[in-house]
Structures are given as structure tokens and as C-alpha cells.
């Protein structure tokens, strides 16, 4: 009996996998001479702090949500604990405008803030590329800077990429590896993959955003390349851990180790940084396809 004490693979080959991290992308920023009606803004809606900064008004931000992770915002305090709004922290910042969306919770916290007579604006959710512009315009209106909103929304409307016949599967992995969560229609990743000219094999066959699939279902899709979040790849022990999972190694993507990763907070953020993400992601996919 041979006893080999293998240590946990520490994503040894991660360097060979092209990754896009939050620091790799600059925040596109617009400038308008409008004077905002709000002076102290707490942005709790998913990614809304980033939009305020991209509109050119970072100086009026006094609090932010946990998902706005870009380095430029790191000095602004986070007003949520594990996605729950902390009333005391928000009130201590004395805001005159709070931006929320339908996922901002708990309801009791929002009730208290409303009673405090602070203006609260509900933003539309943005889980696809097509709704980014509407969200940016909504934030701009709430701040009282509609022109800046139009300028920012214009950036994303003007992105087009040629079609390429690459089949991509988006896997959501969290170490719970064996039963894969595969992105289907509405995962968010589908709109990214399609917009940069590739095919999302999950979205073509699966009606739900995230689907627990077995190894064979993944083999059946035969993806050329796998798109993952950075920490997702780490959670299965890097590229070697990934291809040793039943099902992955039997796809063209697994056989050639064609994988691209994007920072967890960035891939599905659907905000101003998405526009700088798209060309980088497309370039990484095309480079991997040469493997």
C-alpha cells in the first residue's frame, strides 16, 4: 500500500490562467459641470457607489455597499454587514440621499431610515448588460445630474464585437465541486458572453439562471472554454483541481485546460467597469483558444 500525503493543491498553475482582477480595470469616468442636489450620499444598491464615482461625484459619497469593491472607493466606509444594512452606521454619516435596490435589506432597517426623513431612491436592478444604462441614468437622476448620466450611458451603448464560434460554459464553483452550478439563461454571464461574440452553451439549453448539473450534463455540452470566477477556481484547487473533477476533464475545455477567470465582484457587477471588462475578456478568450 503506497501512502502519499498529498497536500492541498495551492492553485499552483493559477499563473497560467488568464485572470482579470478588479485592479486591472480603470473606472471610466465622465465629467459634467452640473451641481448635484444631493450633498451626502449613501449608496447601498448593488454597485451603485461605483456609478456615483463614474459620474464624477465621488466626493459626495459618504457610505457604500459591499459590492462596490474598486480600489478608488476603499476609503469610503461600508454600511452593510454581510449584506445587511447597519442603520446606526448609515445614520452616523448624516446622509441626505440613500440609494437602494430591491435586494437591499432588512426591511426594518429601511423603515427606520424612512422615518428619519432621509430621501431614499429605489434603483432598478441590473443583472444583464442591457440594463446597465438604465441603472446609470437612474443614479444620475437621483443625484440631480442627468447630463452626466447620459454621457456615462452612452459609453456602454457603443460597444460591439464580431461573432466568433467559441462555446463557453460559465461554472459557478464554491468548493462544493461535484454538483456544478452551471450558468443558464439569465445568469448574467450569458449576456456578457453573447455580447463579446461567443456562445454560452449553458444558456442555449438551460432555462434557469443557475442549474445543479452532473458531470455527464457538462460533458454533453462540450464547451471549448470554461469561464469562472477567480475564487471559484481557487476553491477547487486551481486548474489541476478543476480538470480532475469528473466531467470537466472530458470536455474540450478541460482537455486543453482552456479556462479564463474574472474577479468575483467584477464579473456580474454590471456597472461602469463592465465596459472596460468586455474587450479584455474577449482578448483573453481568444488567446486561450490558441492553446
Amino acid at each position, binding site marked *: 500500500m503506497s501512502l502519499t500525503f*498529498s497536500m492541498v493543491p495551492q492553485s499552483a498553475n493559477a499563473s497560467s490562467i488568464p485572470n482579470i482582477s478588479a485592479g486591472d480595470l480603470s473606472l471610466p469616468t465622465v465629467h459634467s459641470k452640473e451641481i448635484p442636489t444631493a450633498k451626502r450620499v449613501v449608496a447601498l444598491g448593488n454597485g451603485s457607489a461605483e456609478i456615483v464615482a463614474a459620474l464624477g461625484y465621488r466626493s459626495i459619497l459618504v457610505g457604500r455597499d459591499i459590492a462596490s469593491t474598486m480600489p478608488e472607493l476603499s476609503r469610503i466606509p461600508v454600511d452593510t454587514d454581510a449584506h445587511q444594512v447597519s442603520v446606526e452606521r448609515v445614520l452616523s454619516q448624516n446622509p441626505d440621499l440613500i440609494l437602494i435596490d430591491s435586494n437591499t435589506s432588512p426591511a426594518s432597517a429601511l423603515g427606520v431610515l424612512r422615518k428619519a426623513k432621509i430621501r431614499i431612491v429605489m434603483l432598478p436592478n441590473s443583472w444583464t448588460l442591457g440594463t446597465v444604462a438604465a441603472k446609470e441614468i437612474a443614479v444620475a437622476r437621483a443625484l440631480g445630474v442627468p447630463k452626466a448620466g447620459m454621457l456615462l450611458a452612452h459609453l456602454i451603448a457603443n460597444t460591439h464585437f464580431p461573432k466568433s464560434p467559441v462555446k463557453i460554459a460559465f461554472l459557478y464553483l464554491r468548493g*462544493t*465541486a461535484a454538483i456544478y452550478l452551471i450558468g443558464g439563461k439569465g445568469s448574467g454571464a450569458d449576456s456578457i458572453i453573447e455580447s463579446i461574440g461567443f456562445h454560452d452553451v449553458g444558456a442555449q439549453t438551460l432555462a434557469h439562471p443557475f442549474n445543479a448539473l452532473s458531470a455527464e*450534463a457538462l460533458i454533453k455540452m462540450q464547451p471549448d472554454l470554461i469561464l469562472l470566477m477567480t475564487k471559484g477556481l481557487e476553491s477547487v484547487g486551481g486548474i489541476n483541481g478543476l480538470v480532475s473533477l*469528473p466531467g470537466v476533464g*472530458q470536455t474540450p475545455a478541460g482537455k486543453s485546460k482552456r479556462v479564463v477567470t474574472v474577479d468575483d465582484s467584477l464579473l456580474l457587477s454590471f456597472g461602469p467597469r463592465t465596459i472596460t471588462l468586455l474587450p479584455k475578456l474577449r482578448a483573453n478568450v481568444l488567446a486561450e483558444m490558441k492553446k
Partner: protein
Amino acid sequence: MMGRKFGIPFLLLLVTIGLFILSLQFGIIHLHSSVLSLIGKGGSVDAATVWDVRFPRALGAVVIGAAMAIAGALAQGIFRNPLAEPTLIGLSSGATLGTIVGIATGFAGYGSAGNCITATLGVAIAALISRILAPNKNFGFLLTGIALASILTSVSGLIISVSHQAGIQSLSFWNFGSLSLINFSTVRVITPFIFAGVLLAFFLSKRLNAWSLGESSAYFLGINLSRFRLMAILAIALLIGPSVSAVGSIAFLGLLVPHVVRLIIGPDHRNLFLLSGLLGSIVLLVADFLARTAFQPHEIPLGLLTSLIGAPVLIILLRSRRAQWVSEQ
């Protein structure tokens, strides 16, 4: 008598082989030809599916099904309690905790031999703790085991929720079990441990027969009781630990299978181990086949299925007088 002695194992062996081939043939991907025509071939999607995904998984089902069923028979014998099923009395939870501690500390990754060892230690320690806490073999032993299982599972959950180590999996993976992570390397790693456990179980079978007649008769037959108990616990640990470290806890297999076998052939431990091993393989092959095909393309946790079948059996056993066949001694 001869026909019964050899006929039943032979029949079960045939069923195992038949189910094994069916497991290779059927799944989400419909093969273009019979699995037999793919023997020795590689390259195609069909061949990769059969040899790289289904084959190691079916092999894992055979090995782990046998291990869990034999461990159940052994636990019921050594603890002289018909309900001493490794998952019920906290032994599987010990294996889970051992596995998770191995992964979380970075000592041994998922699917490694080191992880089999930490899981085996986890079972042995859990068994010793429950023996110290509840040395008499009656109902208190079972309740102690249930409490122990609950404590060990909570500690596992606690470690999982704070660990960021790769491969630590979710608590639901460990609690409900799944063969979906099994590949050739996992089967290669766990099989030697399990084989050692099976040999040790058979080695102890005569002494178990004496032991089941009562502590005094075992003593008068010259059995060194403390060594015998330790060896039995080691055998259970070698069977359960590596199995759980690869696929998580699979509830009720160790309860269901030995009881069915006892109904057929009686309590002799050598026959009990042989038939339990075969029937355990069969049950796990069937359960895994259902887990991966019943709700396709989705896969359901295997332990849910074995619990759905096993838990009603437990209720029947609790209500029947048969449940007292050893605990009254």
C-alpha cells in the same frame, strides 16, 4: 444446504455484475453503441464518459457500498445493538470531522491517503468516546451516539464555515453523500484501506459469533476482550473512514443491508459479512444510478435516497420485537 450456502452469494455476485454493466451503459449521455463495444477504445465522447466518469463511479459504488454495509454488520455485532448503524451512532460524523480537519489544516487534501487516515482516526476516536460515555449496550448507547453525531457534525459545520481551503466541500455534501466527486485516483486511494478493513472483519468473525452469545461465553472461550474490541473498532474505522472521506455519509446503508441479510441467512458473521458486502454494493449501485439519472440533467444527493428507503425500515425495526434480538442479553 450447500445450494443455499453458495447459491445466494453467487446470485448476488451476478446481480452486482449486471448492475455494474447497466451503470456503464446508461446515464444522461445516450451512448451510440453498447458499452461492450467500447471496451479497449478511447478518444470519443462516449468512451470518455464510460471509462473516465461512469466506470470509476460504479467501482466506487461497489467498494464503498460493501464497506458501509460490512461496517454496519460489524458495529451491530461488536456493540451488540441492532440499531448500531455507523451514521446513527456518530461514527460517520467522526469520519466527516476527521476528513474536514485534515483538509482545513492543509495536512491532507480531499481524496488523498492522508485524508483517509485522518477520517479513520476520526471514526476510531468517535467510537471510543461513545464507548466511554455509554458502556452498557442498551438504548442509552444509541441516544449517546445520536448526541455525539450532533456535536461532531456541528463542529464540522463550524470549521467549514470559517475555512477557505480548496476542496473542503459543503456540509450538505458530507451529510447527504454523493459519488459525484469519485474518479480513478480516489478509488485507488481508498480501496487498500477498505480492503484491510474487510480482511480484519472476516478475521474477527468467529470471535464475533462467540461475543454475540454474551460477554461471559466470549471470556470463557479465551478471547482477549479489550484487544478484540479495539480490533473491531479499527476494522469499522478502516471501512467507514476512507468511504466517508470520499463520498460523505450515506445514511442507513449499514442498517438496512445487514438486517435484510440476517433475515435470509441468520446471524453467522462470516456469511453476514460476505452477503452484506455484496448486497451493499448492489444497493449503492442502484441508489447512485437513480441519483444521477432520475432528475436529469440535475443530480440529487445519494444519501437522500438511502434515507428515504432506510428510515422507514428503522421505524419498522423499532416497532418490532426483533429489534431486541441482542440488546436484551
